[in-house]
């Protein structure tokens, strides 16, 4: 399987699915960043988890509603940018 290029969760288009790959960002940044990363982990944005963007705010697509596991969370842009995802082929491919 070819490694897909990672994008941030914020860049994932509405309706498209992706797989979380947080390891790259975990533990980086300042204390507040690390705390945020940890909380995102705790609520389910862990390696290998499927995510899908259900809705986006207007304008600018911020905040976004993301389904992760069996839950939906609303995240602001800077929160979503702390999560890296590999977009899955298939589903609705919308140009970012």
């Amino acid at each position: 399987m070819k490694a897909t290029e990672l994008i941030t969760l914020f860049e994932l288009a509405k309706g498209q699915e992706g797989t979380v790959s947080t390891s790259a960002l975990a533990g980086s940044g300042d204390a507040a960043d690390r705390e945020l990363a940890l909380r995102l982990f705790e609520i389910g944005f862990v390696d290998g988890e499927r995510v899908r963007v259900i809705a986006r705010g207007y304008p600018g697509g911020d905040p976004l509603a993301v389904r992760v596991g069996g839950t939906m969370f609303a995240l602001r842009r800077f929160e979503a940018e702390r999560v890296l995802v590999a977009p899955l082929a298939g589903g609705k491919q919308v140009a970012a």
Partner: protein
Amino acid sequence: MNAALAANAEDSALHLILLGNPNCGKTALFNLLTGSRQKVANYPGVTVDRKEGQMTTPLGKRFRVFDLPGAYSLNAVSIDEEVTRDVVLGVREGEQRPDLIVCVCDATNLKLNLRLVLEVRRLGRPMLLALNMTDLASKRGIEIDVPALQRELDMPVVNTVAVKRGGASALLEQLELAVRDVVPHAATWQAPDVADVTATQREVRRILAASVREPVIDTRFDERIDRVVLHPFWGMLILAATLFLMFQAVFSWAALPMEWIKGGVEAFGQLLAAQLPEGLLRSLLVDGIVAGVGSVLVFMPQILILFLFILALEDSGYLPRAAFLLDRLMGTVGLSGRSFIPLLSSFACAIPGIMAARTISNWRDRLATIMIAPLMTCSARLPVYALIIGAFIPQTTVAGVFNLQGLVLFALYLAGVVSAMAVAGVLKMTVAKGLQHPLMLELPSYRWPHGRNLLLGLLERARIFIHRVGNIILALMIVLWFLSTFPAAPADAIGPAIQYSYAGMLRHALEIVFAPIGFNWQISIALVPGMAAREVAVGALGTVYALSASGDDVAAQLAPMLAAGWSLPTAFSLLAWYVFSPQCLSTLAVVKRETNSWRYPLLMAGYLFALAYGAAFVTYRVSLALLGGPYA
């Protein structure tokens, strides 16, 4: 020693805490277990609800049940979560270490919920797991192998349905076995790191694979609704319609019960007046306490209707979605979508609004929301607006459809909202500069609101409100009565008695302060009792203009008098003043309570006064220049 023994005997009930993620149905379970035997207070030193209830099992075992604030993790990121962590660990000051931890999980969402269970399990304390909403889980085809889960977690697991009568029977059976936790436990919790959390999440997934069979989650129903409800255009339209309906209800349904309360209070005052001899005691009871407290109590119906809507919207899962829709808009001035409900409530009265700000976990967001809440035009300002608009603004039609009086009223509401946004924007650029505000808000599945829970929630609100009225507000009323009663008017007085009182003496000072914004001495005096509740100013104006009428008649008689006595710029200036009206002491008292400091209510009073004065000054001077007038 005897005292200690007595205390022990009294506290033979076991301490049980309910712990779980937000939205797991924990509070519904708490309601089911304890019914109406609840009391809500604050944890000392913080304004987090401390909900405690009594419960006795069928076999007679007694429990004190605590409904802890919802938490995703013991690694707290908000004051709520800190309280929860400290109570669980038994290190919260004034709180006894719990004998039993009941972890409540949403059975339809174990993937999220189980992690906290594993985190708490590490503490090695007596605990059990209540799988809540198992009815929904089986409806969705989720099969949970309870014995297997019990084995994997190494703790008792019971099914509960918190919204059904008897839905906690399995839990009650299990509780019969509970004993006092006498084993000494050291609080050995440590903040987890990334590796810890990853390991725990892996463990959650392993346990789920071993004990739960879940079909591919069918989220189509929710998502179909959300496609419309969260849509930038249609969603906003639905939100606007919902709010419109809510406001209609608050103002039209409440009108009748408000009349009843007003009538009841007046009748009670008259009854007292007839029973008591003329004198100070009668004046204190009738004019001070009954009339004063009554003037705040009259808002009860509006507040209850407002909270009925809010609780129902919250229970259904719509409220966080409204917050999602408005987050971007509120974010531009440094607030978050969560500020929306407190601000909305403030249109009825700032007091429940400021109380509702507790749902904002981020302290800075919460403070900013509290600070701007009084700028939302509360219903207490309506009688004042109605009086002045009725007296000064002609009933003409503008552009064929709009009523000019209605337009002015709308403009006043709008002025409040716009200035609130401006103040929040200034706070963002100064105090909270450069801070990123998290949202991270769960949007739970849609559910039908549950009648019993709505009722209990409503009772709780009513209790809190009456509590406030009974304490702080009562005390303020007595002080204000004192100011406007003493010293008594001399026997040969010609003017109204209030002129000779301390409030009347203040008039000289007040006149100097308020002359530049066009207020005459009558207005200045009326502002003093108006500090109790804004609409009291109408009655007070009636008093200083020496009217003998009461209630609605005051406004009817007063309007032509004001129209003849005041200049138009003065009327406009008073309207502008009331957009900010800094003088509601009840609001300031609640802010003091909710922030645990005098700093914020003083700051609030200061900035509101400055804005009110500035706005009235500009309004007065500009309209003088444009219209001319007696003082020009």
